[in-house]
């Protein structure tokens, strides 16, 4: 009887958990640890023999100037995107929790860029920057539109920032709206009775109460910006002269274009460590500031 029960339990465990666990182990866990191993080898993707080379890849990585250009680009990019996306998304959310007649339609419209993939958006915006901006510049004479968009380091950088923020703001706006809708009216009214102005209500009531939404938005925008790949590839391909190449694109190129798989996995390992560290730190830091409502 006891044996039968154990056998039954094992069967249920394999049927219910088995498929997911199997795919997860094969597709995520094994490549993850294999990558750590490859980062200490000279694997080139083709050769049958893979030789242990110790820390050579890591030494090569630290003296790879292009890698550090990518690194610095990714940091500046993430910083710009996190600030702009969240400020714009929050302001839009404040606007669209007002009792506007068309607010549901407006929320939908601001969300639309989000459902389109980064690759196609990058191609679309190539046209906007190159032809669209030029046409607007010609018609209005505003200098901003007559810049050489995507052709210089600065316009390349801000070009990607513009598209990224344009796409992500609607998403973050939805999360901020959900947060704002949860704020208890009576707390706001109590503050009004105490004579608090709009800014004071925002700062002392709204911000502390929507801290969970802020955590989620900061976390999502930061990790998405740091991992940007599709948009980068389709909008600038890292150019001009590698000045807008993100870390993710640099890793891809190192492995699949230059065939330095060992060096690529070394970079990928560092990439993982940074993403994991920043994510955990950021969640921990913001969680501390959340209040129970």
């Amino acid at each position, binding site marked *: 009887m006891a044996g039968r029960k154990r056998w039954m339990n094992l069967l249920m*465990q394999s049927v*219910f*958990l088995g*498929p*997911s666990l199997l*795919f*997860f182990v*094969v*597709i*995520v866990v094994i*490549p*993850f640890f*294999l*990558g750590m191993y490859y980062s200490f080898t000279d694997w080139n993707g083709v050769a049958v023999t893979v030789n242990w080379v110790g820390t050579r890849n890591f030494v090569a990585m630290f003296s790879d100037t292009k890698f550090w250009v990518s690194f610095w680009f990714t940091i500046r990019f993430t910083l710009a995107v996190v600030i702009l996306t969240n400020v714009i998304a929050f302001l839009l959310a404040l*606007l669209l*929790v*007002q*009792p*506007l007649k068309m*607010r549901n339609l*407006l929320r939908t*419209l*601001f*969300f*639309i860029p989000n*459902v*389109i*993939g980064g*690759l*196609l958006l990058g*191609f679309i*915006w190539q*046209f*906007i920057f190159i*032809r*669209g901006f*030029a*046409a607007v510049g010609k*018609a209005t004479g505003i200098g901003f539109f007559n810049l050489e968009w995507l052709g210089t380091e600065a316009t390349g950088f801000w070009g990607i920032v513009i598209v990224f923020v*344009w796409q992500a703001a609607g998403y973050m706006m*939805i*999360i901020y*709206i*959900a947060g*704002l*809708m949860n704020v208890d009216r009576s707390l*706001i009214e109590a503050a009004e009775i105490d004579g608090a102005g709009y800014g004071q209500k925002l700062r002392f009531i709204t911000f502390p109460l929507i801290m*969970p*939404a802020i955590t989620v938005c900061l976390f999502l925008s930061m990790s998405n910006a740091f991992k940007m*790949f599709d948009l980068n590839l*389709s909008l600038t391909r890292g150019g001009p002269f590698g000045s807008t190449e993100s*870390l993710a694109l640099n*890793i*891809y190129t190192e492995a*699949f274009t230059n065939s330095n798989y060992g060096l690529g*996995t070394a970079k*990928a*390992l560092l990439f993982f460590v940074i*993403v994991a560290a920043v994510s*955990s730190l950021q969640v921990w830091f913001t969680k501390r500031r959340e209040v129970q409502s």
Partner: protein
Amino acid sequence: METGRKYSARTLLLEVIAVLLALLFLVPFYFVIVNSLKKFADILKNSASLPKTVTFDNFTRAWEILEFPKAFTNSLVITILANVLLALFCSMAAYRLVRHPSRFNNIVFMAFVAAMVIPFQSIMIPLVRVAANLGLTGNLPGLIICYLGFGASLTIFLFHGFVKSVPVEVEEAGIMDGCSPFGVFFRIVVPLLKPMIVTVFILNTLWIWNDFLLPLLIVGGNAELRTIPLATNAFFSQYTKQWDLALAGLLMGIAPIIVFFLALQKHIIAGIAAGAVKG
């Protein structure tokens, strides 16, 4: 935070501002649509004006070059199969993990959650080798299996949170009535999971439909298996700066997902809010 006041002059002003902002926000789509209907020379002359003569030539040509029906079918098959299997396997796994919290199962759940911070780019290089050795490259089932592996973490995490809120008494009643463990799960638990199944379906659809890098690495070598993003990428690198063709192709590429979004927008926006708050 919602202001309960009546529709005042101030609200009207805010409404006007919001509408103007939304129009400004959507200007890129105006450029794409009007120019996709122009002849190439007209695009170069003036990219901002409405087309003088409307031509659908660009669309018929882009349709053929992109092999749009094929790319669309590939994207659709992958998205639907991966979605159905992810929802099935992950709801079962999450159910098991919640109801049988053995030490092994707790560690497994923690592994699923921890893996959410791993960026795709840090495992893609060895993944290509593992997938090739297992015969998962160059075919659609292989690509779908990759999605089952990568999607498991978030999907199980979302179901896990939801199953915890399902009262165990309902299941016990089912067992008393003589339901098998499968009967309890499929007849009693799954119907209760419906709201989370919708959220999971939406999040995974937006991800898989638009995904570019994984299909590129797994089926990129086989032109027959191109998804919409892969076909667009190949098309665009071949016809760079041929804006008449490119814009028509891009518009066709974004149309299906926009239709999907507009049809399900209420669920999608609710699903995003729900998924994000829990994620």
